[in-house]
C-alpha cells in the first residue's frame, strides 16, 4: 500500500504568500533551462575529459551552490540571466600545481569551446552562453583522508602569481547535503509549483515538447528554498544600485540561514522573515562586539562563507538595515491594514519593477476571472480562495461547504 503523506502549505493560497510565490516563480530557473544547464555542464565535462590537460584527471564534476539546492534565480537585478555553479574536482598533477596555473589550464582548455566567451575569475572560469546563462566552473583538489569531498578551491586573482594566491578550504558537497537534510520536501509546495509550471505558457513555449518528460525538474520543493530565492532577489536588487561598491553578501551564507531557520509547515512570508531576523540578530551581535560576521560551513569549519564579505562592519550593518526594511514592509503587508496604493511601489523597490508589475497584474486578472466565472470559494472568516480545490490545506478545509459561489454582476452609479 502506498501512503502519500502530505506536508507543508500551498504557497498560492494565502494572499501575501501568493504574491511572494509568484515573484519566486518569475525569477527562478525554469525547468526547461534547468535541463539545458544539466546538458551543458555534462557536455563541458566531456569536452574537458577529451583534452590533453584534463584527461583522466576529473574525479568529480557536480553542481554546487544554488544549482545543487534548487535556489537558482536570475543574476543581479536582471530577469533572464542565470549563473550555474559547477565544481570540477581534479586529481593527478593538479594537486601540485599553483592555483593560478590550475585556473589558467582550465581557461585554456575551454578557450574556443563552441565559440563561447571564456573568462577567468579569481576562483572559477566562466563560460558565457548566448542566452545569458553563465557556467561558473570552480577547480578544486580533494583533501584525501578527510570527509567526503572535502577539498581546496583554487584562488588566484592573476594575471601574475601573488602571495595572496591560495587553496581555500571548501566542502560544497557536504553543505548541500546539510541544507537538504534541514529543508525536506514539502509535498504541497512541490505540487503547487509543479502545477504552476505546467500551467505556464512560458514553460510550454520554452520546452517545445508536447509532453513534459517524467524526469522534468521543477525546482523549489519547500518554503525555505522559496524564501531563499526571494532574499537573494532582494539582495540582487539592492546591490544592483551603482552607488553600492564591493561584494554583496554571499548566496551560500543566505542559504545557511535559510536552512537554519527552516520550520516544517511554515508560511512563505514567515520563512522569509525568519531568515532576515536571524541574520539581523547575528549582525547586531557581531557589530556590537566590534567584529565582522563569521559564518562557516556547518560541516567543515574551515570553509568560511564570510571570507570575502563583509569587508568591514559598515558593510554588514548596511545589509542588516536592508533586511530590517524588508521585514518591516512584510509585517505591514500582513497587518490587515496595509496601504494598498503604496504596496505595488514598495514591492517593486524590493523585488524589481517588471517582475512585480507582471505578478500583481497576473494575480488580479486570475482572481477577477475566477469571480466572473464563479470558480472561487470562501472561508467562514470572510476569505476568498481562488486556488484549485485539490490543493486545499487543512486550515482552508474549515470553509463551510454550504456557501457556494454564485454568479452576480457588479453594478452601480456611472463613473
Amino acid at each position, binding site marked *: 500500500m502506498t501512503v502519500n503523506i502530505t506536508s507543508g502549505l500551498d504557497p498560492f493560497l494565502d494572499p501575501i504568500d501568493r504574491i511572494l510565490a509568484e515573484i519566486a516563480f518569475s525569477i527562478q530557473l525554469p525547468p526547461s533551462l534547468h535541463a539545458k544547464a544539466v546538458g551543458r555542464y555534462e557536455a563541458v565535462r566531456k569536452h574537458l575529459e577529451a583534452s590533453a590537460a584534463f584527461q583522466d584527471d576529473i574525479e568529480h564534476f557536480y553542481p554546487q551552490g544554488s544549482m545543487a539546492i534548487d535556489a537558482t534565480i536570475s543574476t543581479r537585478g536582471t530577469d533572464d540571466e542565470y549563473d550555474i555553479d559547477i565544481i570540477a574536482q581534479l586529481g593527478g598533477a593538479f594537486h601540485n600545481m599553483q592555483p593560478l596555473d590550475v585556473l589558467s589550464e582550465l581557461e585554456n582548455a575551454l578557450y574556443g569551446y563552441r565559440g563561447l566567451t571564456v573568462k577567468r575569475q579569481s576562483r572559477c572560469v566562466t563560460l558565457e552562453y548566448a542566452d545569458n546563462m553563465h557556467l561558473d566552473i570552480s577547480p578544486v583538489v580533494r583533501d584525501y583522508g578527510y570527509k567526503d569531498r572535502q577539498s581546496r578551491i583554487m584562488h588566484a586573482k592573476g594575471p601574475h602569481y601573488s602571495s595572496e594566491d591560495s587553496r581555500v578550504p571548501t566542502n560544497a558537497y557536504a553543505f548541500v547535503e546539510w541544507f537538504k537534510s534541514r529543508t525536506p520536501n514539502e509535498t504541497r509546495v512541490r505540487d503547487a509549483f509543479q502545477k504552476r509550471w505546467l500551467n505556464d505558457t512560458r514553460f510550454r513555449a520554452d520546452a517545445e515538447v508536447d509532453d513534459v518528460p517524467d524526469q522534468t525538474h521543477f525546482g523549489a520543493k519547500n518554503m525555505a528554498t522559496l524564501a531563499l530565492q526571494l532574499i537573494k532577489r532582494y539582495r540582487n536588487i539592492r546591490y544592483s544600485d551603482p552607488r553600492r561598491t564591493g561584494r554583496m553578501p554571499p548566496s551560500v551564507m543566505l542559504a545557511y540561514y535559510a536552512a537554519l531557520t527552516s520550520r516544517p509547515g511554515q508560511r512563505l512570508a514567515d520563512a522569509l522573515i525568519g531568515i532576515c531576523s536571524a541574520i539581523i540578530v547575528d549582525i547586531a551581535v557581531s557589530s556590537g562586539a566590534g567584529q565582522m560576521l563569521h559564518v562557516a560551513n556547518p560541516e567543515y569549519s574551515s570553509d568560511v562563507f564570510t571570507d570575502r564579505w563583509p569587508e568591514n562592519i559598515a558593510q554588514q550593518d548596511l545589509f542588516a538595515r536592508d533586511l530590517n526594511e524588508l521585514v518591516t514592509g512584510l509585517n505591514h503587508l500582513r497587518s*490587515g491594514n496595509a496601504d*494598498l496604493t503604496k504596496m505595488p511601489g514598495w514591492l517593486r523597490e524590493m523585488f524589481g519593477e517588471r517582475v512585480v508589475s507582471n505578478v500583481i497584474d497576473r494575480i488580479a486578472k486570475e482572481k477577477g476571472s475566477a469571480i466572473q466565472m464563479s470558480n472561487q470559494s470562501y472561508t467562514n472568516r470572510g476569505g476568498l480562495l481562488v486556488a484549485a480545490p485539490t490543493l486545499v490545506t487543512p486550515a482552508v478545509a474549515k470553509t463551510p461547504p454550504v*456557501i457556494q459561489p454564485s454568479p452576480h*454582476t*457588479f*453594478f*452601480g452609479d*456611472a463613473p
Partner: protein
Amino acid sequence: MTGWLPISLREHDLEIKKDWPSFRTMLFDPRHQCATWRGELHPQINIYTVEIEYSMKQLIDGPKVRVISPSLVRCPGNNEGSLPHMYDRDTDPYLCLFDPRAREWTGWMSISKKIIPWTIDWLACYEDWLLTGVWHGGGRHVTTFSGMHFDLEAHQ
C-alpha cells in the same frame, strides 16, 4: 426562491450568524421589519468591518452593504470612477453587488449565502483595483435612470 413568502428577518439572522462567526446582530426590530448586522471580512490582504442594513421594504433593491472601516480609498481620475461599483458614491456610499434588473437577488434569496459572499468578491476586486488601477471583476454601470428602468452600458 423556494416559497411564496420571502425569507424572514429571523431566518436571515439565524443563517448569517451560523455561516459567518464574526457577524453580530446590531439591530433587530420586528415591529419595523428591519435589521442590521455587522462583521469582519478578510478577503485577501486587509481586514474590513462591514455593515448590512436590510428591511422587508428592500425585497427588490436588496440590502445596503457599507464598509465601516477602514475608510474606502478613492482614486480620482480612474476610468471606473473614484470608487467603482457603488451607489451614492458622494453621499452615503454603499456597495452595488448585483444587477437588480436581472433579479440576481430578491428577498426570497439568502443574504448569508449571496450578499455576504458577493461582498467578499467586491472587496477582493477593490483591493486589486487599488493595486492595479483596473477593476477585474466585470460588471455594469447605470448610465441613466428613470423610474424602475435602467439603461445599461456593457462594461468590460
